Structures are given as structure tokens and as C-alpha cells.
């Protein structure tokens, strides 16, 4: 199939359609508005429904309703809007409803700015809403990977009955790259016996997250835990770049991993053995893969567009085995490849064998 040139935000929309998603509920916010705009045009063409909700709060609850019926459904927003959706996300997790939630991150806290950021990592991977739950969080680094992960995201969401978050940033959403959209997913009917569809002679189905009896709620929490452990064991994804002999491993995700690759290229030209570890699943965090990537490493540099959030998972994964340093830009400022290269050089001097 031939490639088309597409914006990241629009590619999310088209990939969702290819994945069989026919329902989208959203609310406008920069820098992701191209996605609802695109779907408002495309969904009616394929017999789907696009609805602009009165708020992000309403949008996520419409997702909750549509997901309850077993429909493939998506919503998208950017940081402040994702904060508003947290109540609904917690309910989706508690009621074990599959859906895809897109966060094209911008700077915060508060109204923040509209330029790219990675400051919602904690919110995405450590909860965000109330209660003991996890989202499966996927972080694409190119427009092609957006398409691949949106499609896989819907499958994973249904396989585990878990909300999946696609975590990107403003650059990824706005960027155009050539992309192969691939083929349409064929959905099999009748594979969701839990869905509410009208009882039609069977015993009734209930979508619910309320368990007033603590013994029952504990049982429910343990059930969720079991599912999360299974996902941790089976669903980590990551990319390794030049790590086999790397003394300095740069850990970065999304667009910033690509900046890190450019920096590693510069370092390699200067004879510094550097590599990049790029987690694709941010939850579950690819702990084993990071340890493998850093097998030969003397130190790890984490680079983020935040004050240091993923770096905590890097430290937890390495469990004190290696020094972990951090370099970040915030507020919508993006680390340059040269700046990351300078950090690599500094770490190589401090920790490397070649001084």
C-alpha cells in the first residue's frame, strides 16, 4: 500500500476508523483539535457518530456509555482536558470498560501553555483519578507508530477490558510524516458477553464499579490486580537503539527519544558509545528491557520534557544498579539534540572508561 502524508492528529483519527472505531466524543482543546475536526468529517462517512460534548467530563461519560454497549469508542484531549476526564477514567477502569483515550500533552500546571510537554507522565501511569487502577499507556514516536499503536490499542483494550491511553505531545500531533495506514480491522460480532445491549432473554448485564461490601470490593481489587500483573508480564514494548555496547544509555520516550537518537548519532561520531532506550509502553514499564539495554552501561541519562517524571521509573527499574541522571526542558521548550549530546559527553567523562 502506498504512503500518504498525514498530520499526527489526523492519523490517530484515521487509524481509529481502520481499527473499527465508530464512536467519538470530545471537546475542543489545542493542540489536538485537528483530531475531532477530522473525525467530525470522517465518521459520518463510515456510518459512525461524532459528537461534540458539552465538556470533557460529559465526553468521557459518553465514552463510558458507548463502551458499556461493547462499541469501539475513543475520546481525545490535551492535558487540562485530561484532568477533567479523570473521574470518568477511574469509573472506566473500575467497571473494566475498553476504550482508547488520547492525550496530546501541553505544558502545565493549570492552564499552562499550548506548546509540547511530557508533564502528564505521572497522571497517565500512576493513576490520575482515584482508586487503585492502571491504564495501559502507549507512547508513539512517529506518525507511523501512532497508526500502529492506535490499532493495537483498541485490541489490547478489549483483550484486557482496560482503558488504553495514547500519550503523545503537541509536536507529534502537529507533525506530518508519510504513513502506511494498512488494512481495516475486521471485528467479530458477539465477543463481548458482558456488554449491555438489552437483555433479550438472557440474565441481565450490569456495568458497575460500586461494591459497598469491603469483602466484595477487595475481591474486585484483587481481580483487577491479577489482570494488571498479567499485562505487566506480557505486554511491555520498547525500542533499543545502539545499546548493545553502550556505556551511556539515554532513556526517553515519544518525540524526545528521536532527539536522543540524533544526540547519540553525534556522540557516536565522537567515539562515545551511547545508545537509546525508548519505552513504548509507559505502563507497564519495560523494566527488563531497560536492564538489558543498560547491561554494558556505566550510567543512564533520562531526558524528558518535564521536571523529571519517567526518571523515577528508570531509577526503580535499575534499583540502584547504575547512576541515573536527568536532563529536562519544560514549559513547552524542547531539548535540542546538541544539548542532549553535551549531557551524554558530560556523563561519559564522569562515568565512562574512555575519558
Amino acid at each position, binding site marked *: 500500500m502506498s504512503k500518504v*502524508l498525514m498530520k499526527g492528529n489526523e492519523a490517530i483519527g484515521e487509524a481509529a476508523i481502520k481499527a473499527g472505531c465508530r464512536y467519538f466524543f470530545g471537546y475542543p482543546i489545542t*493542540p489536538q483539535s485537528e483530531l475531532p475536526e477530522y473525525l467530525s468529517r470522517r465518521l459520518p462517512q463510515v456510518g459512525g457518530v461524532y459528537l461534540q460534548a458539552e465538556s470533557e467530563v460529559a465526553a468521557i461519560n459518553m465514552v463510558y456509555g458507548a463502551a458499556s454497549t461493547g462499541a469501539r469508542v475513543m475520546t481525545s484531549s490535551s492535558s487540562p482536558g485530561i484532568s477533567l476526564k479523570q473521574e470518568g477514567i477511574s469509573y472506566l477502569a473500575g467497571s473494566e470498560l475498553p476504550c482508547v483515550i488520547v492525550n496530546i500533552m501541553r505544558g502545565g500546571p493549570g492552564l499552562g501553555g499550548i506548546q509540547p510537554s511530557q508533564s502528564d507522565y505521572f497522571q497517565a501511569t500512576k493513576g490520575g483519578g482515584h482508586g487503585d487502577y492502571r491504564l495501559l499507556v502507549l507512547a508513539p514516536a512517529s506518525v507511523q507508530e501512532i497508526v500502529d499503536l492506535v490499532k493495537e490499542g483498541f485490541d489490547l483494550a478489549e483483550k484486557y477490558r482496560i482503558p488504553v491511553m495514547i500519550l503523545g505531545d503537541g*509536536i507529534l500531533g*502537529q*507533525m506530518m*510524516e508519510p504513513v502506511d495506514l494498512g488494512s481495516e480491522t475486521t471485528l467479530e460480532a458477539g465477543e463481548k458477553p458482558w456488554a449491555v445491549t438489552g437483555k433479550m432473554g438472557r440474565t441481565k448485564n450490569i456495568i458497575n464499579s460500586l461494591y459497598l461490601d469491603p469483602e466484595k470490593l477487595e475481591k474486585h481489587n484483587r481481580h483487577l490486580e491479577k489482570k494488571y500483573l498479567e499485562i505487566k508480564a506480557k505486554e511491555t514494548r520498547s525500542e533499543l537503539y545502539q545499546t548493545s555496547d553502550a556505556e551511556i544509555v539515554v532513556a526517553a520516550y515519544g518525540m524526545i527519544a528521536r532527539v536522543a537518537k540524533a544526540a547519540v*548519532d553525534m556522540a557516536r561520531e565522537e567515539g562515545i558509545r551511547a545508545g537509546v532506550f525508548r519505552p513504548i509502553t509507559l505502563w507497564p514499564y519495560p523494566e527488563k528491557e531497560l536492564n538489558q539495554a543498560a547491561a554494558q552501561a556505566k550510567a543512564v541519562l533520562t531526558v524528558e520534557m518535564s521536571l523529571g517524571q519517567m526518571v523515577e521509573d528508570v531509577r526503580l527499574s535499575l534499583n540502584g544498579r547504575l547512576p541515573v541522571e536527568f536532563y529536562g526542558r519544560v514549559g513547552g521548550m524542547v531539548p535540542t*539534540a546538541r544539548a542532549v549530546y553535551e549531557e551524554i559527553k558530560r556523563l561519559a567523562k564522569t562515568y565512562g572508561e574512555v575519558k
Partner: protein
Amino acid sequence: MLKQMILAGFGGQGVMSMGQLLAYGGMLEGKEVAWIPSYGPEMRGGTANCSVTISTAPISSPLVTEPDIVVAMNRPSLDKFEPMLKPGGILFINSSLIDRPARRTDITVYYVPVNEKAGILGESRVANMVMLGALLQAEPVIKPLSVMESLKKVLPENKHHLLPLNAQALAMGAEVVKEKSNKKTVCNVG
């Protein structure tokens, strides 16, 4: 081959579409490409810019912080992006609207009066195509023919009568670059 560019001007000068045509044309030639726009309120009235990367190898970072090529369609763009150019890079200045020469002395500069040239064609909106023609003559990152192919795909059928005009604009820009007097490797133009 890896070339990174920043194209900048004010909203309405067609810098975004200039960049998209480069990216689209590069894709049609089977190259790796990426296009990143500036976004936000600055698009509405202020300065707009986009970054384009065209490469024969996979692109590690599509973020352009040290461009090989800068196109400045207005004065604020020149002030902002001239300092970012790589040493030895190429700077295109829209001399119809920009009243100062380049300040760098380690780059190649082309002065292209795109608005005057577009005026000769009787269509001010092809000024960006004049600049694109100049760019591709000085640094053939893709073939002008690929730009025309992209235009065919991007423009709706009912606008295809504008294709010859756009081809003329490209050629006109290329002519400006061919005239040696418009090129300055060391900046000394008053």
C-alpha cells in the same frame, strides 16, 4: 543526504504550504520526510514557520534546531532564524519585503524579490512558489517536477487550471538564483 529547513513568514504568505509541498514531493520521490508547523495564536496574524526534514535515510529527529536552509519571507523571520543556520548553510531572503541584508558571514545568501516576481505573473499568491523555485535551484533537495506532482494531488480538480501559473512561478524563482548578482556568499549588500 539529510537536509533540514525552516521556512518562515507571516500568516498568509504560504510558508506552511511551501513546506508541505517539499515534504509531499520528497515522499513521492521515496525519500524520508517530516514537516512540523509552529502552532498556536502566532499562526493568526503573527509569524508562522514550519520545519521540513528530507533525508535518504530514516530520520532520527525531525526537530530542526540547526537548519541547513532558512527561508525568511519577512523581517521578523530573518531576525529570528538567521542566527540558527548551520555554518555554511543557505539563507533565502524575500528582498521585496525585507529591508536589511544578512548579518552572518559564514553562509550563502540569496536575495529573491518574490512579491515583485509574483506581481509580474499577475498573482500575488504565488510568491511562495517563486521562493520555492529559488530554493530548489540553489539546493535541489527534490525535483521541481515532484513539487508539481504534489500540487496536482493537493489541489482540487477545479483548481488545476492554476498549475501552469505555479510552474511559471517556480521557473521564475530558479532564474533569480541563476543570476549571480543575487547571490552573496559574504554579506556586503547595503
